């Protein structure tokens, strides 16, 4: 629990858990057990803690999270499917003093938007990207995603994803980490309290490299989609731990602050 969320109620009681100011007070449209709600909350907590909400422009993508702009209390723009990093590039170039982030799912970012994410990272655009990987197209009803695991059944690979037929699941954090403009890149998970706490730390770093002008910040979040996985929320969390994390290992894949190369990332650097 962050101190920012500790406050005193009119009754005098100390409230130890409240809605972040940057999170709009309205019910979400997400399914029971969906992790978007947790990821949204982490975004809002960080915008509160970093004090940047009034200076933020959010870029929503296509998929369940298109409605991000209804929940985050910042100015926001919608982008076509996969194009959020290009839209965010335009926003940041037009308003370099703003805090700009995209929030994208795996179909959006790793399939139709592959060119946009690779090149925004490679240019070192001073933006941050929150990447929700739940191995499935959610809003359209559970089709195969580029991240769908081998053997996983979806509505467009009903026999299970087959390496020979559909290729291997794409590991985005590993790819983004190798691009010259990436200042921070990590993969976290939202399946347990421990992992959620760690994921928030990664998100903070992905946000801070933008704020400090070091470069492109990227955080991948392994997330559950109980509806399209045909599972209970508890079983979905177990699937993340048992099946996803072994294929998509958690951790930091690039951190120019930690490895001491951040000086070369800023204008006029070595």
């Amino acid at each position: 629990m962050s101190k920012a969320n500790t406050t005193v109620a009119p009754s005098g009681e100390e409230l130890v858990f409240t809605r972040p100011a940057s999170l709009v007070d309205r019910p979400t449209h997400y399914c029971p057990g969906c992790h978007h709600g947790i990821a949204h909350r982490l975004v809002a907590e960080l915008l509160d803690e970093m004090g940047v909400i009034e200076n933020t422009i959010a870029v929503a993508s296509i998929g369940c999270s298109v409605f991000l702009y209804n929940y985050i209390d910042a100015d926001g723009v919608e982008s076509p499917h996969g194009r959020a990093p290009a839209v965010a590039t335009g926003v940041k170039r037009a308003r370099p003093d703003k805090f700009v982030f995209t929030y994208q799912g795996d179909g959006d970012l790793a399939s139709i938007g592959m060119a946009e994410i690779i090149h925004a990272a490679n240019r070192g655009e001073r933006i941050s990207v929150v990447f929700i990987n739940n191995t499935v197209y959610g809003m359209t009803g559970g089709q195969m995603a580029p991240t769908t695991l081998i053997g996983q059944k979806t509505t467009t690979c009903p026999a299970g994803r087959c390496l020979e037929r559909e290729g291997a699941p794409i590991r985005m954090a590993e790819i983004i980490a190798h691009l010259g403009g990436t200042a921070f890149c990590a993969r976290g998970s939202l399946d347990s309290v421990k992992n959620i706490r760690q994921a928030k730390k990664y998100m903070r770093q992905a946000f801070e490299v933008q704020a400090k002008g070091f470069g492109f910040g990227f955080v991948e979040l392994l997330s559950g989609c109980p509806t399209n996985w045909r599972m209970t929320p508890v079983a979905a969390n177990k699937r993340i731990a048992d099946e996803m994390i072994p294929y998509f290992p958690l951790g930091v894949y690039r951190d120019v602050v930690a490895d001491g190369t951040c000086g070369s990332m800023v204008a006029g650097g070595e």
Partner: protein
Amino acid sequence: MAGNKERLFVKGNEAIAMGALAAGCRCFFGYPITPQNDIPEFMSKYLVEAGGQFVQAESEVAAANMLLGAGACGVRAMTSSSSPGLSLKQEAISYMAGSEIPAVIVNMNRGGPGLGDIGPSQGDYFQSTRGGGHGDYRLLVLAPSSAQEAYDMTFDAFDLAFASRNPVLILGDAIIGQMKEPITPREPKAVDPAEGGDWRLIGAPKSGPDKREHRIIKSLFLNDGELAGQNMKLQAKYEAWKKLAACETFEVNDAELVVVAYGSIGRIAKNAVRNLRAKGKKVGLLRPKTLYPFPEKALEKLAKAGKRFLTIEHNLGQMVEDVRLSVRHYADSELFCVYPGNMPSPDDFEAPILRALGRK
């Protein structure tokens, strides 16, 4: 550069870039494609020197979406391309029209379909004037016929885009882009820093005098009746544009036959009309300067006065549909097509004009 009364000898493409700079363009997003490369090349130097942002995007798709992002922030921004590139930009153009984001888009039309060639063509008339992407929407479409007009129309396009919160398309071709001729630049525009203040994204203050609700710029309207309302709003906007329709007329008063042609072909046709006038032939010219809105009232007036019409286009017959719709109560229009891949001269137009004049 701009700002004094000296004349400059430049390509049409350079005139467009100069017009954009003088109009206060702050961001340019482009991708290489012939025959428009002079525009991004110019911007990569002079826009950056002027403190603006130039990005060579990874694709036409990305360039158009960067334009969307900058436009949503209320910043004057532009992209340019040529026909195959415009096909790729249509996704973002539809989103910009749907979410009412101002931007300036340049198409230096080349031959098609497919890869076509790199020479001039007017084959993108339908794509430009019918929307081009998915859904019901329109762009303001301006068609220059000289380097000066390319400069002026680009200069004005930013004001039009912001006044109407809509993308504006400049439709030139390889002739306009590559031809070098003198232009007179205008005084650079002092853009109001508060431009777009009631809708642009700039961060939502939570306290103080500027406190406001967070803004959302979007084209998604799922609630019952909401999209219909947005479409009605857009249609009303397009209807209000009709007063912006503009055209050049030449020797139409006593003409029996009026040639209708736009852009570079309009200019070549004007020479043909001038040559035929010297031979005593009663022919005139109407050159649409705006393709959307189309100058239908001017055409209807001429039709009502008993004129006959010949549409000349550098395609297989596209604008002729709008000419026929404009004059339909009183007349029809004949059609002479120059196939993309061929370069016409005024002499090529004399015979078809005389044929049409002779048919009563």
